[in-house]
């Protein structure tokens, strides 16, 4: 839930990278961290185990000051993907404003993607949130691997679904900023509808995005695949 502090002229948004174990959520955040200007982002806090598995979450704050003097902060979180950390995922998901769902493109991971999606829907529900009310974008990660679902297949499922779909290789850094932009825009629009943010903060969506992404160039060739009408898990 967005935190608006009018007295301190500060607003904090929460974006969570969700998805099955080892789908590349932390790698996404690391790639974003490398690409954003140090003026815009804080340190990347990685809380992992000795074998590089996320233990609690990763956190990277992104912030800027609007011309109207408001500080806008976006906290980017990842959840631990391993099944046993469900309660931690639920805690991290509390008060979320937007979700980037990092799915694994590999063919044999379809079931894990689905399980994780259901797990997310259930955890949102247990947090009193409705998945239909929370902006979600889906990223098909690991496009650089063999044995992944084909581009045509992904285009087709993107067409059928309601969520914007992105393709990425977080390890190579492709598609991560597009995914971030996608979820930031969707979240901003959703919050603007609810709280009239643009009017209150005098910031338009494009300005909001350019403050964060700045010169971290977005590859325009990778626009989201346009969703159709029917919903469904990736």
């Amino acid at each position: 839930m967005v935190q608006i502090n009018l007295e301190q002229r500060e607003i904090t948004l929460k974006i969570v990278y969700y998805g099955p174990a080892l789908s590349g959520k932390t790698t996404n955040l690391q790639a974003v961290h490398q690409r954003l200007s140090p003026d815009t982002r804080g340190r990347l806090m990685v809380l992992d185990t000795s074998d590089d598995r996320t233990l609690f979450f990763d956190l990277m704050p992104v912030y800027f000051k609007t011309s109207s003097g408001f500080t806008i902060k976006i906290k980017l979180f990842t959840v631990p993907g391993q099944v046993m950390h469900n309660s931690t995922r639920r805690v991290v998901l509390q008060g979320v404003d937007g979700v980037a769902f990092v799915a694994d493109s590999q063919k044999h991971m379809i079931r894990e993607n689905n399980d994780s999606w259901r797990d997310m829907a259930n955890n949102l529900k247990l947090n009193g949130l409705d998945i239909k009310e929370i902006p979600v974008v889906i990223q098909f990660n690991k496009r650089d691997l063999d044995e992944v679902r084909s581009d045509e297949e992904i285009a087709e499922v993107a067409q059928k679904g309601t969520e914007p779909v992105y393709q990425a290789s977080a390890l190579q850094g492709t598609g991560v900023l597009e995914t971030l932009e996608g979820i930031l825009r969707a979240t901003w629009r959703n919050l603007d509808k609810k709280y009239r943010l643009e009017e209150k903060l005098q910031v338009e969506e494009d300005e909001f995005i350019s403050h964060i992404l700045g010169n971290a160039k977005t590859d325009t060739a990778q626009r989201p695949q346009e969703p159709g009408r029917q919903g469904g898990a990736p």
Partner: protein
Amino acid sequence: MSDPGQVAAPDARASVLQKTFSLEELLDLDSFREVCQSYFDLFQIGFKIFDADGELLVDVKSGSNDLCGYLFTFSEGKARCAREVSLIRELPLEPGVIARHDCFTGLRYLLAPIVHEGSVMGRIVYGPYLPTGTSPPVVGSMGEKYNPDIAARLVAQLRRAQNEVVDKVVRHLAQTIEVMLYIGYKHALTSRMHVEAVTASYTELQQKNRALQESYQRLKELDRLKSNFLATVSHELRTPLTSVIGYSEMLQEGLAGELTEEQKSYVGTIMEKGEQLLGLISGILDFSKIESGNLQLNPAAIDPVEIAKSAVSTVLPLARKQGVTVELESLDSPPTIQADGDKLRQVLVNIMGNAVKFNRQNGRVSVRVERTRRPSRESGRDDVPVALAPPDEECVRIQVADTGVGIPPDNLARIFDSFYQVDGSSTREYGGTGLGLAIARSLVEIHGGTIDVESTQGQGSRFSVVIPVERET
């Protein structure tokens, strides 16, 4: 029953991830003061740290600055000093920008914001110091008692420093504090997150446990109802069946007029099948009574040899039909035991019946009754010294050995399970429900005894029933 996956929706603001921390919460103040003191030791310029609300957290004073103290003794000086203090506390600061403030004495302060995640959480007020290259300040009169010579002497003692150097030091101090804040923040998040995750798991487990407990209670109740149902139905089935058998018997005995040989044969079949059915129903009834814990024993002092003899005589007709010899031997004179004679006979008839049924042509069944001892339950454990363990228990062992088909080793452990037969197809060949040995085991266990089996496939099996002489009450 509630869904075990459901947990109460937590307050969205409850998690530490949503919490806004203050400077004091993220810094370990004692360690932080040590760091500040070490900065002072290095550069000999005093400084103050304020939080976002203007509260003073650290004050490192320079011994060389007595000028301020001197001026503060005059009401004029005090008032002007207070104005300066409120100015440097409230002057708005931007992240990354160091502000300069020269006080009325001409001394300089540098104001640096303390920034965490893009927010100003406090400020460093560094100084005062006298920038090198500037002429010594001339403080105007503070009143009658003001002595310009003292003021001039104190000015001469002031710490002089280059602006560029001080600027670097302040930036470095701000960076050090920022790292300390980050570490404090990381520590606060992980430690509290750990507690939150454990609490969430605990709550979830508690709810699941409650749901499991509820379903366990329901299953227990259902099981009890099932046993009651079985017992009632078996009983109700038995009553009319007794009449069927009774009237068939009367027919066969000619009480309703002489029957032809064919009619007698038919009635004989009705009786035989009726008896079979009765046996089956009695078995189910016994089993359901045992299962529901409703079986009542009528213990009395009985002679185990007599019981064995009686069981042998029951299976003898079947044995003769199958061409199987049954022998009974009693090596010593076994003592009388406290047991329910009917139930014990039922057990032995069952085992001996199997020994005959599963035997070969011209096979043999040997029944042996003998004294034995077994370690009492406690002495079987090694958590008490032998000296303290109770003595061995006196028992009677009844062994039934056959020369039949034997039991495959894999099946030995399961033959006492209810409704289990070594070969499902053998039910048709040998008959029975698969309840006999399960009932036998239950009956023996109710007596505080044990039943075991050894078998060599193709050579035969040996069942041993051990019943304690004294029944535990």
